[in-house]
């Protein structure tokens, strides 16, 4: 038990892909430790974000295929199934906070996209 807790506190960076593989203002899906994670590249901010790919309302692995945009100050993706918004920084579902998902830290190093899990 305590070992698990300790290991999850250690940030583990997993290299996912070349940054060039990301098209501006769209998403892709990565498989990291058996988990589906959606990765988005927002061109204007030159920033990469990562959240769960699973849409808990539509119950399908589709969030990487949604449209990216802003709601006020928040950067979000809209689920391609039923259009709920998920905050790319926090994973919060704007319409239904009880359906919020996990957001992951991302960094770009030497042209590679790395996600913290």
């Amino acid at each position, binding site marked *: 038990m305590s070992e698990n807790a300790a290991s999850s506190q250690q940030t583990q960076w997993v290299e996912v892909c070349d940054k060039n593989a990301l098209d501006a203002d769209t998403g892709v899906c990565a498989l990291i430790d058996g988990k589906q994670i959606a990765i988005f590249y927002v061109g204007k901010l030159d920033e990469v974000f990562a959240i769960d790919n699973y849409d808990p309302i539509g119950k399908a692995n589709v969030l990487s295929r949604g*449209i990216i*945009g802003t709601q006020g100050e928040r950067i979000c993706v809209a689920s391609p199934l039923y259009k709920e918004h998920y905050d790319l920084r926090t994973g919060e579902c704007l319409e239904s906070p009880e359906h919020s998902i996990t957001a992951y830290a991302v960094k770009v190093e030497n042209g590679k996209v790395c996600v913290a899990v």
Partner: protein
Amino acid sequence: MSKQRVIVVGNGMVGHKFIDGIINSDHAENYEILTFSEEPRLAYDRVKLSSYFSGSTVDDLMLTSEEHYQSAGVVYTLNDKVVDIDHDSKTVKLASGKVEGYDKLILATGSYPFVPPIPGKDQPHCLVYRTIEDLEDITASAQESKVGVVVGGGLLGLEAANALKNLGLETHVVEFAPRLMAVQLDEGGGNLLRRKVEALDVNVHTEKNTKHITAGEKHRYRMEFADGSYLETDMILFSAGIRPQDELARNCGIDVGERGGIVIDNFCRTSVEDIYAIGECALWDSKIFGLVAPGYQMAKVAFSHIDGGEEQFTGADMSTKLKLLGVDVASVGDAHARTPGAQTYTYEDGVNEVYKRLIVSEDRKKLLGAVLVGDVEAYGTLQQMCVNSMDLPDAPEQLILPTSDGSAGAAMGVDALPDTAQLCSCLDVTKGDIVEAVQGGCCTMGDIKAKTEASTGCGGCAALVKSVMDNELKNLGVEVNNHLCEHFSYSRAELADIVRVKKIESFDELLESHGNGGLGCEICKPTVGSILASFWNDYVLEDKHMGLQDTNDIYLGNMQKDGTYSIVPRVAGGEITPDKLIVLGEVAKEYDLYTKITGGQRIDLFGAQLHELPAIWKKLVDAGFETGHAYGKSLRTVKSCVGSTWCRYGVQDSVGMAIALENRYKGLRSPHKIKFAVSGCTRECAEAQSKDIGVIATENGWNLYVCGNGGMRPRHGDLFATDLDDETLVKYIDRVLMFYIRTADRLQRTSVWLENLEGGLDYLREVVIDDKLSIGQELEDDMTSNIGKYQCEWKTTIENPEKLKRFRHFVNSDETDSNLAYVVERDQRRPANEKERENHIPTVEVTA
């Protein structure tokens, strides 16, 4: 506390309202409800009874259902009549012999049609007009009759006359009084109504007192009148007034009025303890109320009294407004100027057949009543002034005089109405209720109806309710704007103009020059993407457009509920060769795709995963297929019937035309999807009138229908132009579509667009046919340019290795989505539902 047992005798409109009131109250659980009806069904809408003749079914008329009563615990018995009340033992006895005890008894027995005691009245084809069974009898009788007479020229009689006319009978109205609607109208109003009704081919005979009904010579019966004249007819419909159904009360020692009606007090109590009477059977202050609204009020009052409340019934406004035989008629308050000292103002326009009369108090400060025939616009204002005793303006005649610009007279500002003003009398909704609903967030009539039920009865108050709503929205400072979303303070149509005129070619360019900052969202991005495609028609997956594309467009397929896609190749006009059909079959088999024929005459292959799309499409493109744009807000299909090439009836080659049109407009991005159909003759087998663009062959060319719709809110297309040659047909379609693309709102189908287009169909004709705006050539040029840039998006995509990279589930792995699960049904696979997933019903392996 034990439940009170409430028995409701009669399940008509008012009895049902009473029950509904208990069910919906906070104390519903304190009551056990039983109801008995003599009729074979639960309550239905008698007010709308006549709509049965214009297509409404019994189901449409029902006010409730057996399921609803069952789920609310209401015990009901149909086809059984209460024949006795024993108020000592507090029981009722039924015709079937059953006896039931009550704590409270509600008499809601309504009324029955009065048939004058004329010898010969009891023969076949002598009918009345009150129940659904009556309507069935009338319909049956009309089939064996040529001439029909309505006895009675009141409200109901004229409604009945309309029904007979609709059934195709030569129709007469016979009235005892010197004028029609004697109860509601004065002489001037009655005379004008008569002229109007006669103009509609209904023969009116006033001051006729029928003495005998005997066998006729030319027709079934002869009606002999007191003045010696006669009229021959095949059927007779009595509508000479109603009489309260008080027989039960009368026989059981409950006080009834001299001329009928169960006497009630302000709490709707009868002379016997624990027995109430409501609706048309009740007599209050020596008055019977033959309208539904006062009955509803009584229902409320009676329940309030039983439930310990204080509400009282203190009379009701009997103002009415209705359309009789297409003529608008309204009467307000004391229409006959019976109040001592009453003064009148009369306005009569014989040319336009309008009659209006105001009845005001002696001091000319208050409105006492009004009569309106032919133009009833002032009804709402006048009725409110009257019931709320509001002060009249200095020159009261202004209220009925036309203004110089031809519009109706001075309307009262709704601000002047007190909050207590009852706007909807059918459902007792006040101005205060509407204001509160608007403050609570309602901003459309739909919201208001759902929230307050206002205007859901006879609908007579709709205009007034809307102006109160609009006024309140204005007071709240709500600017009803049509801005696309937070990123653009423009409507879709305005953005389309900006893009077209300023030649803007990308979303970022538009956001920078005309947006409000931010990155855009899932509303403005696809909208602008579609506008750009409508005018410039670039490849939709070009880098600068890719992030704009909606769920479906971005992977050129329709995303299904489990995240897989469907594949729909174009089959123009629904014509397909056997070889191509075989290719579809082979591909579907290879990838185990669920296969279904669509409503648009083509074939849909479901369940393809993202990574499979390119390979599947490569096979299809190689076999000569193109994308069907089933994923886009764009032209879907042009459905066709087989037409003159094969069909015995066809007069033009509908398939050929359908293929030509589909190929011309394929890929055209638009505010919403667009569907066409072409039929080879007037038999219309392709159902073209339910499409955005419908084309129907004639001997001389083509008839063009526009802006039809199936779907959620069906609408028949409007006939736009007739007997067009091929060239003109295409020209008009070009112009209509481009004008739609320029001016429609986001996700607005052509049907709604036309309904909202100022000037409607006539205006559209002026723009397209008469070229009133001088943009005809421009619209055609825009279309030509769009068509010139057509490409099959799938062909372009499979030839572009960079774009193909996006078609894989994982960017860092070749694995596929492990969340997919299927079961086999009717020999094909389909997505497993949640239950099946949980129960681990064996699912089909997905081929990777």
